[in-house]
């Protein structure tokens, strides 16, 4: 999909990701053991499943956060290079730093890595991303003056500023009202169209609007169900016949997984 807002020069070369035989135990429970997952390069993969099944933990395992070991053994990239430093993360809450204004929040990754103020080029880039997310007017505002939807837009701009080929999202739109949610889903799909995205969600409609492939995670230890792959390109309309067609099937799978 082509669009005016996303700057193609920004997008890094897409990288595919495969997880083979992932194992994770948490508080004496084996969440998954021998789990396989493929994230196709430049595509959105959505992950649904009952609460507590281990979706977020799988995402954190890929992200390589503390206490979750064994990452390098199970994860490989399609280009054969290590994954380190090539993943961006977006959580359910925006986690903006309340002491930084909006543009500094977008630039916070530079600050955290270089330990000094970002250069003019990075600043221009941040301004560009703020316009693309419709936030140009509030660049100098403080986060607590913004609505939840606008704050999550800032989080999207911050994720894009990281300019990583792989983006992991953990229910990023679940705290938003229905209309804001649909708008932001469209915006994210547009701006992250060339990235390899793993989106963990509770919302079947969201998964079907945004995902190139949609998986349901079920059982303990958990496994992934057969992928649902609608033909039309995302973001699909909420009343798209394919979306509606698959929604029933997906809800059925989810209901079974929750038993």
């Amino acid at each position, binding site marked *: 999909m082509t669009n005016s807002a996303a700057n193609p020069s920004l997008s890094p070369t897409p990288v595919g990701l495969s997880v083979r035989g992932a194992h994770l135990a948490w508080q004496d429970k084996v969440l998954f053991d021998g789990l396989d997952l493929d994230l196709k390069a430049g595509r959105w993969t959505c992950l649904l499943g009952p609460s507590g099944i281990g979706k977020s933990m799988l995402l954190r395992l890929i*992200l390589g*956060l*503390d206490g979750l070991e064994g990452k390098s053994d199970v994860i490989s990239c399609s280009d054969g290079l290590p994954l*380190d*430093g090539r*993943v*961006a*993360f977006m*959580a359910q*809450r925006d*986690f903006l*730093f*309340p*002491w930084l204004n909006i543009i500094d929040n977008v630039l*916070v*990754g530079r*600050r*955290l*890595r270089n*330990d000094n103020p970002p250069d003019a080029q990075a600043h221009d880039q941040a301004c560009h991303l703020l316009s693309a997310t419709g936030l140009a007017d509030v660049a100098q505002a*403080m986060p*607590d003056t913004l609505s939840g939807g606008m704050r999550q837009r800032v989080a999207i701009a911050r994720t894009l500023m*990281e300019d990583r080929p792989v983006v992991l999202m953990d229910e990023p739109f679940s705290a938003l009202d229905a209309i804001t949610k649909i708008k932001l889903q469209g915006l994210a799909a547009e701006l992250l169209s060339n990235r390899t995205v793993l989106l963990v969600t509770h919302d079947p409609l969201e998964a079907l609007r945004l995902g190139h492939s949609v998986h349901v995670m079920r059982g303990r230890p958990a496994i992934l169900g057969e992928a649902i792959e609608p033909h039309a390109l995302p973001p699909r309309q909420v009343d798209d016949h394919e979306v509606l067609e698959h929604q029933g099937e997906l809800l059925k799978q989810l209901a079974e997984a929750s038993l």
Partner: protein
Amino acid sequence: MTFVRPVIIFIGLIALWQIVVVVSGAPHYILPGPLAVVEAWISRPALFLQHGAITLAEILLGLCFGLALGVTSALVMAYFRPAREWLLPVLVISQAVPVFALAPILVLWFGYGMASKVIMATLIIYFPVTAAFHDGLRRTEPGWVELARSMNASRWAILRHVRIPAALPALGSGLRVATAVAPIGAIVGEWVGSSSGLGYLMLHANARMQIDVMFAALGTLAALAIALYFAIDFAVRHSIKWQPDSHPDET
């Protein structure tokens, strides 16, 4: 109303004081009336201002040293795990010894001058500052740390750009508490041994039955302490503007 209320409280307390004096018929060398105290102050303003300046200097120096030491200790404890494991118990145990009990020793070691009082004030300020800041550094929102890690931030960068700014409101609270207790250190130090300061002036006047002078010195100290508290409170609010004042029952 915000400004009127303290004024009403102040006038009310003065009136109550006057009523107690009139009703009890207490002699002026036991409980002088408010007017007598004001007269004592006006007749010799330089006396109270000079001694007040010395006490204020002791408090301010104590605040500077206590703040610097407290902030440093909290940072060291937050960054180096072994330091935390060794320092924290020492800190807690040190609080078992009342600072007042140390006053005679401090005067013996550091003399009758300002040094012993500054050290007293520093000791009394150190704990609330360290405890509050360390607590703030420990309670960083996990989502912020997770985000910073996902951006490949080093531990030092996380401390500097995430944990320290996030802990500033806690440090501000600690500093407010410290400011409220700081005068205690200076005054106790002056009581134990000194030749100047409001504490000295109070003891000196007390021994000569100049109770009006004593009350005037006490009033000067109270005014100093309140002014200092509001100055620090103002400074804290303005340096941490992003932290909104929450009024849970109003919003």
